[in-house]
């Protein structure tokens, strides 16, 4: 009972029986069907439409174009609202956009009686454009004569530049700070990838009275409500968002995608029920992606590997709209200063730049998987140059115990990085393997590699951290639990249930969590992102449980005529605190309280948390690979993640989070990449051509933990959701380096790329000539 136990998921039964309902499963009959009309250019302006053919399609009810929507620009990032607008998100898009910035931009929308009519009419909408040359690289976007994509918010295509320098002096000055320093310079880059949650974004909307309800597959119902209100120019509470079970999100649904447009459609159509489903192809091409980032790094070290100074410049390809972009590259350069400590100085500059690629947004790890590829490739390559052991160099320089970020105050209240390395090193048989794979020859070679990471828990103090929880006790002594925090597959409902059981003193079977968030009913929460919920929303559960417990014990004291201080709740009973002897079951007490003629009481508690803490999670990946050099094919033989996420609320579910993240990291390392042609058209926006890992593409995934109790977590816990996806890619890359001696400087390590690198390195002597 309570935390630290691998209870079964509270939603598992419904998910294996088909009883769990997702957005599309709840759609009432008779809905009108909306279909977004997408631009056939990546950069330009819509001049006019010819709608005659589209309107002639039988069953078409309405067509709205970019000339029909409110002249309101809004921001879509799933961030807490910022009262000082200029410091918050970037308001750079309308419901439909006349100024086209992405191939497939939303320029019009058709509403029809069924799918066939909507799709047909959408195809027949003719748009005439003023077309500009697509801007498909950060370098081109920053050219002095590049067309600014968002002149209303930025004079050039530079969306954000964030910068820091910590320590003494400058990187340049550090060069001469002592004799015999060795310098290392390199450039690394990562590709755009997509979340590929199995359920595409779905929503439907209708009106009751003058209020709009949107049922949506989102991670952030309360934020979606606010943004819908902003986008339509309506008071926020005129909007009601309902979030049922969702088929994964991974950050894509931490963005407000099509809910405002869906709300607009029902609003304009007299409150009629309208559904707006986004296809897989639209999801991949036109929602959000993980940013492709290019980094230039420099480092100075003593010959023994002691880091003296480092510098990173990162250039992030934002794509057409700001979304989360301004904060993600800042996160990227921040990791660089946190994960390793420089003796003198660390400098970071992050540039986020608008282009005509798909819009970059939040994705599991939020800029840190990119950063980790840069910093862990750099560390490995530098160690090789210095001739020092890369693990020793890591351990000598990594995140100090008691680290406090000088910029934000984010602290490693607990820090198990070194313990993770020690544990993984033994479990993985690292020393023996590392030695065995030295100096291999032949066409098939093996190697091992590792990569560290660290990750913060939630967004404080960069952004607001708040959460609410409501509980009441039913007449049978069970507890109803209402959260604003969302279940998105990660197991949030289960761990909140465990926390409530622990905090109140009841069994999990007697906790009934409401999985669906309805913003008319659910307590306020910001939602599932930043690996925050178990930490921040968990604080709210713990506090509400304590308040509920106090109320129950106060009533029990009244009925039992004993001081409340001598009472406790354990295992669904009020007991004598000193020896645990039961006095009365909660079932008997609660029904008595509800119907007591002298003192009737519904035990009820609500807690509101304003969290002013943030703590750092850490961990490591160890990977063992076999490389078929002529084929450029990497096979992962063995992979292990060791995590320092504090106390595990549910170890079995924690393991599941790690497995899923590792798989995502493997896809990032070897297979996944969104490709575009010279016009900015997506080339592989489907699950056949975009290589998501299948069960055959990876070995068994091993997860281990170091459970240090974090003093700030409600139950000693800290971030776990995102971290597993961070370090697999650089660990795999470093394993390929040991196997082949080839330092690949970009992701993914696809066969095409590896063959090129192996030819260059002389590992492949003859390239077959194709006739």
């Amino acid at each position, binding site marked *: 009972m309570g935390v630290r136990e691998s209870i079964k998921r509270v939603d598992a039964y419904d998910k294996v029986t088909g009883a769990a309902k997702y957005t599309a499963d709840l759609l009432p009959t008779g809905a009108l069907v909306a279909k977004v009309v997408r631009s056939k250019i990546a950069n330009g302006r819509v001049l006019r439409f010819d709608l005659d053919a589209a309107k002639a399609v039988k069953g078409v009810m309405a067509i709205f174009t970019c000339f029909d929507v409110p002249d309101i620009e809004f921001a879509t990032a799933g961030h807490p609202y910022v009262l000082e607008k200029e410091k918050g998100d970037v308001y750079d898009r309308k419901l439909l956009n006349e100024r086209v910035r992405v191939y497939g931009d939303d320029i019009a929308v058709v509403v029809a009686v069924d799918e066939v009519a909507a799709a047909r009419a959408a195809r027949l909408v003719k748009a005439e454009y003023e077309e500009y040359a697509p801007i498909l690289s950060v370098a081109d976007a920053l050219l002095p004569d590049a067309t600014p994509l968002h002149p209303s918010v930025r004079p050039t295509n530079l969306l954000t530049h964030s910068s820091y320098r910590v320590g003494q002096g400058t990187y340049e000055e550090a060069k001469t700070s002592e004799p015999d320093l060795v310098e290392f310079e390199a450039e690394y880059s990562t590709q755009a990838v997509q979340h590929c*949650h199995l359920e595409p974004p779905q929503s439907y909307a209708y009106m009751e009275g003058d209020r709009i309800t949107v049922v949506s597959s989102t991670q952030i119902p309360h934020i979606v409500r606010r943004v819908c209100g902003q986008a339509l120019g309506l008071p926020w509470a005129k909007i009601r968002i309902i979030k049922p079970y969702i088929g994964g999100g991974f950050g894509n649904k931490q963005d407000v995608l099509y809910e405002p447009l869906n709300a607009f459609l029902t609003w304009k159509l007299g409150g009629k029920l309208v559904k707006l489903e986004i296809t897989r192809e639209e999801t991949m091409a036109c929602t959000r992606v993980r940013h492709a980032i290019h980094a230039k790094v420099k480092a100075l070290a003593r010959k023994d590997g002691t880091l003296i100074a480092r510098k990173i410049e990162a250039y992030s390809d934002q794509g057409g709209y700001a979304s989360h972009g301004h904060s993600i590259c800042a996160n990227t350069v921040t990791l660089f200063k946190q994960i390793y400590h420089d003796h003198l100085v660390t400098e970071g500059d992050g540039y986020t730049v608008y282009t005509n690629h798909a819009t970059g947004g939040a994705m599991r790890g939020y800029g840190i998987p990119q950063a980790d590829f840069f910093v862990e490739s750099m560390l490995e390559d530098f160690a090789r140059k210095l001739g020092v052991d890369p693990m020793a160099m890591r351990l000598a320089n990594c995140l100090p115990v008691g680290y406090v970020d000088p910029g934000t105050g984010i602290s490693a209240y607990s820090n198990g990085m070194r313990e993770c390395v020690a544990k993984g090193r033994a479990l993985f048989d690292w020393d023996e393997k590392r030695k065995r794979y030295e100096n291999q020859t032949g066409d098939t070679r093996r190697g091992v590699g590792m990569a560290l990471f660290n990750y913060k828990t939630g967004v404080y103090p960069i952004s607001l951290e708040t959460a609410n929880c409501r509980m009441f006790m039913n007449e049978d002594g069970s507890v109803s639990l209402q959260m604003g925090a969302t279940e998105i*597959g990660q197991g949030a409902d289960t761990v909140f249930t465990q926390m409530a059981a622990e905090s109140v003193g009841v069994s999990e079977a007697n906790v009934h969590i409401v999985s669906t968030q309805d913003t008319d009913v659910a307590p306020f929460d910001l939602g599932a992102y930043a690996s925050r919920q178990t930490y921040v929303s968990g604080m709210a559960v713990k506090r509400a449980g304590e308040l509920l417990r106090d109320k129950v014990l106060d009533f029990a004291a009244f009925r039992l005529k004993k001081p409340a201080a001598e009472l406790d709740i354990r295992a669904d009973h009020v007991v004598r605190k000193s020896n645990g002897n039961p006095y009365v079951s909660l079932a008997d007490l609660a029904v008595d309280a509800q119907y007591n003629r002298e003192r009737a009481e519904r035990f009820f508690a609500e807690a509101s948390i304003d969290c002013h803490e943030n703590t750092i999670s850490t961990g490591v990946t160890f990977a063992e690979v076999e490389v078929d050099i002529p084929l450029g094919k990497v096979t992962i033989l063995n992979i292990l993640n060791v995590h320092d996420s504090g106390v595990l609320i549910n170890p079995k579910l924690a*393991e599941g989070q790690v497995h899923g993240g*590792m798989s995502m990291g493997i896809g990032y390392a070897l297979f996944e990449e969104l490709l575009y042609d010279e016009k900015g058209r997506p080339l592989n926006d489907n699950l056949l051509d975009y290589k998501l890992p299948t069960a055959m593409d990876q070995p068994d995934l091993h997860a281990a933990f170091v459970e240090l109790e974090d003093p700030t977590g409600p139950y000693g816990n800290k971030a776990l959701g995102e971290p597993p996806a961070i370090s697999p890619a650089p660990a795999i890359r470093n394993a390929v380096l040991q196997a082949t001696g080839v330092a690949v400087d970009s992701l993914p390590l696809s066969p095409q790329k590896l063959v090129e690198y192996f030819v260059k390195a002389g590992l492949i002597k003859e390239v077959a000539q194709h006739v």
Partner: protein
Amino acid sequence: MFKTLTMTVNGAEVSIPVDERESLVDTLRNRLGLTSVKKGCEVGECGACTVLVDGEAIDSCIYLSVWAEGRRILTVEGLKSPTGELDPIQQAFIDEAATQCGFCTPGIIMSAVEIVGTGKRYSREELRKLISGHLCRCTGYESILNAMERIVEETYKRVGK
């Protein structure tokens, strides 16, 4: 355009009008309310819409409803026993935490029913291949393979072929 389709769905015979152009996933979801059959791609890439047709796992998004005439269809809704007990495969998915967001789960369970139904013993590597038509972004397939390995083994011990 509309035809009357007669088929057996989860043990009961149904006779319903369907559009000739309709895919089985839409018939099952929209006309019969069997919403466990999920739509993840609608082009046979992800496996979320997998159901059994005469015992064989198919992607119902690329299977025309009219092809189901006279056939037996099984979805996850039809797996529980008449008295409501879970199928051992469903129980194994619960016990091994093989469901996270749950969107791919009904489809994979239906493939598992086909695989387990052979009564054969499969290695973990063979199971990887057998479920490779299903995409899952949450689990890394690890817990799914654990559940399948367990149920395949248990079944083999009982009815082994």
